[in-house]
């Protein structure tokens, strides 16, 4: 990003954005924060936060925000939906979905970054679907199959119930990202890095 000055590879403004988005993803999973589906279905809005992080922060900052959150969860903070946290999450069957957040957020960010200073809604929807649904399932299902010993197809079937909700979340994340970027142009990754470069 800033090859000419390696000392500023990690500007302080980015540091603040990364930690605030890591916190935002955590807050979206807090009980009572948002009960869109009346708590009946275990659908959380945390992946919605992951997609938003990608679309707004850009690839590497979004991946770093997710990494920070995962690290804090591993150390024992109950920051995942339903107050889950600790090492138990990492030996459980859904760990692949959690680790998939990392490349998922990065891919969403990468696609949005390619859109330049005015990423359209179509690009945002594609980015959120590819990163926030595609990549996460790509990591989640094989890991689940490996942990449970189920064949890949059966493991995929187990996840099928979550697909409609996840697709809806991806579209919603794209709409919210678009609205945010209209209200606050600095929420567009390309615009932000231009501004940081300009100093």
């Amino acid at each position: 990003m800033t090859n000419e000055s390696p000392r500023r590879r990690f500007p302080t403004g980015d540091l603040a954005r990364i930690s605030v988005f890591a916190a935002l993803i955590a807050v979206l999973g807090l009980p009572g924060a948002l009960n869109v589906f009346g708590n009946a279905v275990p659908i959380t809005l945390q992946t919605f936060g992951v997609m938003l992080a990608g679309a707004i922060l850009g690839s590497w900052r979004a991946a770093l925000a997710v990494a920070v959150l995962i690290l804090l969860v591993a150390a024992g903070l109950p920051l995942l939906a339903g107050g889950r946290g600790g090492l138990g999450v990492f030996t459980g069957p859904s760990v692949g979905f959690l680790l998939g957040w990392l490349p998922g957020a990065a891919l969403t960010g990468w696609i949005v970054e390619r859109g330049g200073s005015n990423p359209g809604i179509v690009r945002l929807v594609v980015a959120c679907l590819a990163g926030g649904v595609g990549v996460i399932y790509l990591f989640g299902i094989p890991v689940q199959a490996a942990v449970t010993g189920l064949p890949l197809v059966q493991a995929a079937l187990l996840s099928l119930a979550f697909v409609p909700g996840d697709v809806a979340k991806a579209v919603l994340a794209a709409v919210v990202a678009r609205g945010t970027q209209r209200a606050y142009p600095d929420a567009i990754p390309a615009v932000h890095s231009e501004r940081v470069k300009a100093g």
Partner: protein
Amino acid sequence: MIGIYVPGDSLLHHLPAWAKVLGLVVSCTVLVLLGSLAALAGFSAFVAILYVVSGVGFTAAWAQIRPLRWFALVLFVMQFVLMGLDTAVVSTLRIVLAVALAGLVTLTTRFADMMTFFERCFGPLRGVGVDPFRVSLLLSLTVRSVPVISALATRVREAQRARGVSWSMRAFAIPLVVSALRHADALGEALSARGLDD
């Protein structure tokens, strides 16, 4: 924010974090290698004894397993249909035990101790230009930001309610994200003003 850690004075509480994580890795490997029902029953007893020794109590133990309950049920039924009773019991039990063991490590290790252990693991990264000070700043800023963002979410929701707006995800999330970003950028400027860029 309250961690998962349960204070106590047991042997497990006094073991260093690295020893517990190493023990967890070894036990999980053993667990994967165990195939028979009898061996798994023995392992279950071992886990149960560890929980009793740790003295974390039943509520804390159940909180570790609880998120798995529906998944375990569905998995058991699927395995039973596909591969018979023995396989179903073994593989379901294996997952529950692995989660219980890993949970026990977290239940008996302070957040700060675990973070110190992680920091030591990431020590070699210093060679590739990772600044440990910035990493710990990033982590503590995140911990501090959780209540701030949570308060922002409450405020946005209350403002919406006060205006009598019917529930709309868009009308909730956009103001929340914009105000979170404003907060982040102000925070970044405050950090720069304190000389963190140099």
